[in-house]
């Protein structure tokens, strides 16, 4: 049992009736990292989070937060973490200020500390302009920032974000990411779930890919890409028989290949070698090709055979 682990889940399983939502999941999250749980909707990410902060009990297995058994002392563990749920839980009739006060009191904050902390999180998430309007009049992005502000009221050592940017426009996503990075730089450990691969790749130091309740891969995003595939990708359309003819003439056959319908993705150290080779074979009849860095979406496709974004 290492003292520096913030979250430690050992062989955690959760059943809802006959349905297995989480299947012998192991997680070890050290302090100071941003850790991502990736997977499509229904993969068991939210259930995993709920077990981690003790809102639901695992069917078997144990979870420790800050070394505290969450089943034994949920109050002590939860006083040190903040959670932003997937669905906003704001009180719509009240203003952001009032929402923050109500939430601060859940953590037993008292005046003057309550107001002081409220002003700090209002500043940090730039909520001041509408701090006294009823929440129901605020935009989706503003409400999301307020939801995150609520979970920061108790200065959490661990911040849990469940799908923090789902449904937000790109500018708001970028702004939220920079806040998350700031928190991490300040020493807060961040655990987030997402089905956006770009989000995971930009924010997370480590990720675990979850599929059907199991962690099928874990590591730094770059490490996962090089372990399972290769740094660069070439994508093009062609029929299966053409594919082998095209690639076998290359001499040394490139590493991993994946196919989705007519689309082929080839993963290799250096994309230009393959691009040049195909151009040379095609002669005048140049086909459309994409050469790009390999991303976590590819890793997910390679590991599960399904696409992640938009998958249900």
């Amino acid at each position, binding site marked *: 049992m290492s003292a520096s682990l913030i979250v430690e889940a050992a062989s955690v399983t959760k059943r*809802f009736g006959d349905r297995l939502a989480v299947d012998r999941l192991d997680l070890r999250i050290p302090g100071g990292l941003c850790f991502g749980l990736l997977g499509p909707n229904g993969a068991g990410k939210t259930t995993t989070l709920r077990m981690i*902060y*003790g*809102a*639901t*009990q695992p069917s078997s297995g144990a979870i420790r937060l800050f070394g505290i058994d969450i089943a034994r002392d*949920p*109050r*002590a563990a*939860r*006083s040190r*973490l*903040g*959670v932003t*749920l997937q*669905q906003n*839980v704001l*009180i*719509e*009739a*009240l203003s952001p200020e*009032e929402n923050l*006060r*109500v*939430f601060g*009191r*859940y*953590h*037993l904050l008292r005046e003057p500390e309550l107001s002081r902390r409220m002003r700090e999180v209002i500043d940090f998430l730039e909520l001041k302009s509408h701090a006294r309007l009823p929440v129901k009049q605020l935009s989706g992005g503003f409400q999301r920032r307020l939801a995150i502000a*609520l*979970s920061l009221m*108790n200065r959490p050592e661990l911040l*849990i974000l469940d799908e923090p940017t789902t449904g937000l426009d790109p500018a708001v996503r970028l702004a939220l990411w920079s806040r998350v990075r700031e928190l991490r730089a300040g020493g807060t450990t961040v655990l987030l779930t997402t089905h956006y691969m770009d989000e995971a790749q930009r924010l997370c130091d480590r990720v675990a890919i979850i599929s059907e309740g199991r962690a099928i891969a874990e590591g730094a995003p770059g490490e996962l890409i090089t372990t399972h595939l290769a740094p660069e990708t070439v994508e093009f359309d062609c029929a299966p028989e053409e594919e082998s003819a095209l690639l076998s003439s290359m001499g040394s056959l490139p590493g991993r290949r994946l196919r989705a319908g007519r689309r082929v993705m080839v993963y290799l150290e250096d994309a230009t070698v393959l691009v040049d080779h195909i151009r040379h074979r095609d002669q005048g009849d140049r086909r459309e090709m994409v050469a790009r860095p390999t991303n976590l979406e590819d890793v997910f496709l390679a590991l599960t055979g399904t696409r992640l974004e938009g998958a249900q």
Partner: protein
Amino acid sequence: MSLSLPHALSVWRRNASMYRRTWKWNILPNFFEPVLYLASIGVGLGAYITEMDGTSYAAFLAPALVCVAAMNGASFEVTYNIFVRLTFEKAYDAMLTTPIEPDDVLAGEILWALTRACIYGSCFYAALALFGLTPFPSSLLVFLVIPLAGLLFAAIGIVFTLKIPHIELYSFYYTLFLTPLFLFSDVFFPLKERLAGPWLWVAEALPLLHPVRLARAAFRGEASFILVWDLVYLLALSTLLLIWARRAARQRLTN
């Protein structure tokens, strides 16, 4: 045991914060309701009744209506309002991300329902006072009955709320449970004069009967041994239901 009173009070404070915005609109109907009942049934219908159980009809009706007000105040809170917080506002999901535990949620909500019962009951009492229907000082004892009535109906309603899957089922709760109680619990006429032998014993099961009898005794300044039974009934049934609610709350909130 994992009840923490400070955390329960923070749940109470959440509801109070919301109520602070709307209390002016909530309080006014509280005043009108007794006035309407007293005008229609107490004064209007009461004109044809020279005496009921030894007093004027309005005096017979008054203490019972205080209990009905407390019942309604608590019931509305633990039915529709809690259901909305539970399923639509996800208020308890938010609380369970903080050190608040299901027991605190339950305690905070019960305390809040009691608060609402006391507000309703007190408003009703104040309106009755304007009609000169609150004999002083004995009727002040009803302020001990109001929270007891509130507690019982908070406990009944919260168990129902924690057990039902959708909000439409409340129409059964109101039309098949609360309304019959209102009509047949000694409020409008003394049951003991209309029911025969064994049926009187069956009627003792009616939850509203007991606070009504206590309130009427308070207004009349009369004490009798049956009031001990009424108190035992109120406290015992409330306790049993709260034990049940505690288990149901854990299940519903942490599934």
